[in-house]
């Protein structure tokens, strides 16, 4: 065997300095993300929005529920109320900051829940036999027959308004697409040789799923789930706007939009602010998902 190793001295010599530490896929993805300026900026904005919502009590200048008829519909730049006030005289900035808590919570929780349930279902469907696959995927197809907004409204309409019901209905809406994505990713991975090699090594099924399939499916699901957060924020705000989500007087962006709608001719800019918050947050999550996708799309040299 000495002659064999002697034939590749170049490779070994060059690799020696950093030889001991191989770079994992995720380390490479991390570095690519760091080099992508747009994604870094967008990620910063998302972090800032989340931080504002989390630290709302310290960031807010007023009590978000404290209104007064005397200072209704103040324009932007009013002393003490720099983003103005709403139709009952509550401070817009404070309500936006507190509203972010509910909006982000209602936007992200359904995606998390749907990823957990849908991911498992999709994995089962992708790995299982023809019968199991048909069973899961045809049920999923039924949900696809309804437009997602309509489905969410219908579910909320039946089970009633409220935060818990919003989250439940949005979870139901997001499970089918996540099942589909997970199933197709799983089937792709399953057909690769390394899974066959693992089967040939007499390893039990659960070990193959855990060590061979899941690590190779996770990235794709992550990207998809991130892109769903944007949609989820819009949908949950939409449900609140329609009176099916968060109930007044709690601050929530969709609900604020609905309330300020009536004063759109009096102070149009203030009325648009919750909408701006929704658009910016949703857009940032979508851009983040795009950045993540391109960072993970590594064409490895073979």
């Amino acid at each position, binding site marked *: *065997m000495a*002659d*064999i*190793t002697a*034939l*590749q001295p170049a*490779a*070994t010599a060059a*690799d*020696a300095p950093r*030889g*001991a*530490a*191989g*770079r*994992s*896929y995720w380390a490479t993805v991390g570095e690519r993300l760091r080099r992508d300026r747009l994604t870094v900026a967008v990620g910063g904005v998302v972090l800032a929005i989340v931080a504002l919502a989390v630290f709302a009590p310290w960031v807010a200048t007023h009590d978000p529920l404290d209104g007064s008829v005397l200072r209704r519909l103040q324009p932007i730049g009013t002393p003490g109320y720099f983003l103005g006030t709403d139709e009952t005289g509550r401070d817009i900035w404070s309500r936006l900051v507190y509203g972010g808590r509910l909006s982000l919570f209602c936007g992200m929780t359904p995606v998390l829940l749907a990823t957990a349930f849908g991911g498992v279902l999709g994995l089962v469907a992708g790995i299982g036999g023809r019968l199991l696959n048909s069973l899961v995927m045809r049920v999923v197809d039924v949900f696809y027959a309804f437009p997602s907004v309509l489905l969410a409204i219908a579910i909320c309409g039946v089970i009633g308004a409220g935060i818990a019901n919003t989250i439940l209905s949005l979870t139901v809406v997001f499970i089918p697409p996540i099942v589909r994505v997970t199933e197709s990713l799983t089937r792709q991975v399953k057909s*690769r*040789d*390394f899974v*066959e*090699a*693992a*089967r*040939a*090594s*007499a*390893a*039990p099924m659960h*070990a*193959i799923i855990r*060590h*061979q399939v899941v*690590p*190779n499916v996770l990235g794709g699901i992550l990207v998809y789930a991130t892109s769903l957060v944007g949609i989820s924020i819009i949908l949950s705000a939409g449900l609140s706007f329609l009176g099916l989500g968060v109930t007044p007087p709690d601050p929530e962006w969709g609900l604020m939009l609905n309330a300020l709608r009536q004063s759109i001719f009096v102070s149009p800019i203030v009325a648009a602010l919750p909408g701006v918050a929704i658009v910016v947050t949703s857009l940032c999550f979508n851009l983040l998902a795009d950045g993540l996708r391109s960072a993970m799309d590594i064409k*490895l*040299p*073979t």
Partner: protein
Amino acid sequence: MNGSTTLPPNRVDRGGPAQPLLLVRGLKKHFPGRRRLFGRGREMVQAVDGVSFSLAKGATLGVVGESGCGKSTTARLLLHLIRPDAGEIIFDGEGVGESHGIAVRDLRLQMQMVFQDSYSSLNPRATIADIIAFGPRAAKHMHRRQSRERATHLLEQVGLQPALYAHRYPHELSGGQRQRVNIARALALEPRLLILDEAVSALDKSVEAQILNLLFDLRRELALTYIFISHDLNVVRHVSDRVVVMYLGRIVEAGPAAVIFGEPRHPYTQALLRAMPSMDPDRRSTAPPLVGDPPNPIDPPSGCRFRTRCAFAEAVCAAVSPELGRVAGEHEVACHMMVPGSGHSRTGCGQ
């Protein structure tokens, strides 16, 4: 065979050196193809149709044939990665899946495979050490540290320095290095039989030679038996003791490598050998040895499957399917021209 149901520990030679390590009889796999529109039933792709051979301990069996002839399917059938439709696989005297035989799981512990595509056969999210240690850990419940040591040892055995490569990921390695990892992974379970499915076909010629040397060394050190599947006749000639030639899911000729390459009898084998690139420019032939593509395996020709491309095809070839018959010693051919009284006008011409 003692008929006991308890399985022997790995690598124990049970039947003695005379008993074939692997005996395959009538192995068959027809894949369902597309459903016929307005028709009855389904099209069946006859990937492997009645393959039989035996493999002595410590020997290397070469399997050659055009792509699509069922070589790789046969390999996967042997490991039960695909369930055979019919046929017996007997590993060292024990029938696979039979009530007193060997379970598929235990068969896989003794029979391992090296795949052609060195990249797609390695988990891209795992380190080299984890890839090699996966089998022992998952299938044999070896402890983490123990399996790590095993991986380190195996890396040394296949000529990769553990300190340099154990923590690497597959994409950081070259094709030859990855194929070494593949071999190490296959050896991790201490198999007795290694199936090399086009294991060196995707490599550069110089790297191919290194890997072949490695395989030779390993065979000697670990007393391994190989099934060497390849379309590269030069390589097969170089490594094999016995050779099996497949055409459209059937074996058309089998025998010792020297005989197959020295005096091939089946017209298909002869054509294949003529297609071999010659190292001698003076002996170069310009006439194509084989015309056309292999027939569609969904609807193979009646009788002899090679008759549509055979220069000597006659009426009997379309009517009767030739059996694999002994012509001399270990040499077996499935051709009517080899069988006296078969009805073929050229009977005995090959003599």
